[in-house]
């Protein structure tokens, strides 16, 4: 059997994003782990990918022609575990073990024993180079699958990314797609007060990438843009997705606090109620 993308479209991916958010809230709360804000931020992007756009096959996780997806912002691992479980790579019930003693669902995403996860990350600035290697190899072999790498904005401080950005443009890897979850908040403070990325689009363009900017919570926009890749023939593509950290839970949105804080007790109940009502 071959893998297929699923044509659920924006309605399906919106429902999936909601489930990913609820899973991630439960997982981070019960395990007492951090980074729920970073998962909520990227949930819509991940839902569009796993909800249809990625050509993958849960029955055959190693299918050679599958699209590759790398979560370079590995601290948002809970969101990927939720997505691969929802996509059918592993039982949804396993999500309950996240961050627990003896579990292989680590706080930062790991591939070992987790079908559907391509690469273990957690130290930032690793995913794009590995993705570039996969894209380079696919092109050498004349294979047509694509490689998607999801980065955080704070992660773009890492110099290794810029090595990969140079390389991918030089080799015209138009089968490589970077998506930046640009929520404007990093670990301790806003991006603009830490290491300013702007003019961000101009940087990628100057490095030779095709660039699209969109609202990273707008499913229709995500479907439209990610269905028409590469953005420019002969160039790697980057989608700068403007997002809201903590999206979907009012008191978590746009706060530095919820990069690390865990929702417990009444905060958990309020967050869950908001997500369920969304």
């Amino acid at each position, binding site marked *: 059997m071959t893998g297929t993308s699923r044509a659920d479209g924006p309605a399906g991916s919106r429902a999936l994003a909601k489930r990913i958010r609820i899973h991630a809230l439960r997982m981070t709360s019960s395990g007492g782990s951090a980074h729920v804000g970073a998962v909520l931020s990227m949930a819509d992007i991940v839902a569009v990918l796993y909800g249809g756009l990625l050509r993958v096959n849960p029955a055959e996780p190693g299918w*050679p022609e599958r699209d590759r997806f790398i979560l370079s912002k590995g601290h948002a691992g809970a969101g990927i575990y939720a997505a691969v479980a929802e996509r059918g790579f592993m039982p949804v019930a396993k999500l309950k073990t996240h961050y627990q003693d003896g579990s292989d669902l680590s706080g930062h995403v790991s*591939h070992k024993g987790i079908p559907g996860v*391509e*690469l*273990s*990350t*957690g*130290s930032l*600035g*690793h995913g*794009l*180079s*590995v*993705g*570039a*290697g*996969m*894209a*380079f*190899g*696919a092109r*050498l*072999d004349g294979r047509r699958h694509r*490689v998607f790498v999801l980065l955080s904005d704070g992660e773009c401080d890492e*110099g*290794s990314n810029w*090595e*990969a950005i*140079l*390389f991918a443009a030089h080799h015209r890897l138009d089968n490589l797609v970077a998506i930046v979850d640009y929520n404007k908040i990093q670990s301790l403070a806003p991006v603009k007060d830490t290491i300013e990325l702007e003019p961000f689009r101009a940087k990628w363009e100057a490095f030779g990438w095709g660039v699209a900017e969109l609202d990273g919570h707008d499913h229709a926009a995500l479907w439209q843009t990610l269905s028409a890749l590469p953005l420019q023939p002969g160039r790697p593509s980057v989608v700068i997705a403007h997002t809201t950290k903590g999206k979907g839970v009012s008191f978590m949105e746009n706060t530095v606090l919820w990069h690390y804080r865990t929702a417990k007790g009444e905060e958990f109940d309020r967050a869950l109620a908001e997500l369920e009502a969304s």
Partner: protein
Amino acid sequence: MRDAFIARLTLLAERDPRIMLITGDLGFGVLTRFAAERPRQFLNAGVAEANMTGLATGLALDGRIVFTYSIANFPTLRCLEQVRNDAAYHDADVKIVSIGGGFSYGALGMSHHATEDLAILRAIPSITVLSPGCLWEVEGATEAIVRTPGVCYLRLDKSSAGRTNADGETYQLGRMRVVRDGNDVSLLATGGILGATLRAAERLALEGISARVVSVHTIRPFDADTLLRACRETGGIVTVEEHVVDGGLGGLVAETCLEAGVVPHGFHRIGLRAGFSSIVGSQEYLRTRYGLDEAAIAAAGRAVTQGRVVTASTPGRVGL
């Protein structure tokens, strides 16, 4: 060693299209033939070792056997986390080759002194660590790592012991080689310093001391059997490495002996005990300067056979 490696890799790459060689913009004149003959198996990643190692992982995860190539500490320490997290954790078939072990580039200064790599690489789980001492071992190691799954580190040296193999000998990764027999003391060497170690054994022979010389071309997996036999059969152990003594061959031998409950009759580690070398010079000069040369190895062997404790280390020099 470098030329022997490239020549063998070129042959292997002709036969096996999965093999790929990525350089971090080094190897002027040396890689030209490989690049010209096998353009689809060659890539210059530029001066970007972190990216080079990530690329190698990505290529390896999709079925290639990828050699990363650079000098001194660039393909190892510069990108150590990529080696650990990307290549090693994923059991990717990435083969890291560093030209210039120890003081091979002694005159270039501290940045080019590769004197901690063995200890650091062997601390990372699952990496096979090779440090051949002669050209035949380089060829054998190059072939062996193509067949060995996962990450391998091949440390190559400017110096070498020439060719030390016996007729018909087969290279075995992970198996120490007794390249000279003897019973009074065992000199265990890793890397090109095997040459100086063999010369030290010659010198001792003139004094009537019979030194066994063992080439430890594989640091991991480590051949405890040959080591423990040397402990039991000879009058003591001297380890020889162009590397810091912390965590290198000497440390590995000490750990292995103690855990096995086998205490050698005498023991000394030849290696670097000082801080960084801000002094430069040829490989030969720096070996003499830091007590790693033929005379120092012979002196340690002599002292061990006489049951003397070798007192180590005035700063900058192994004192004997």
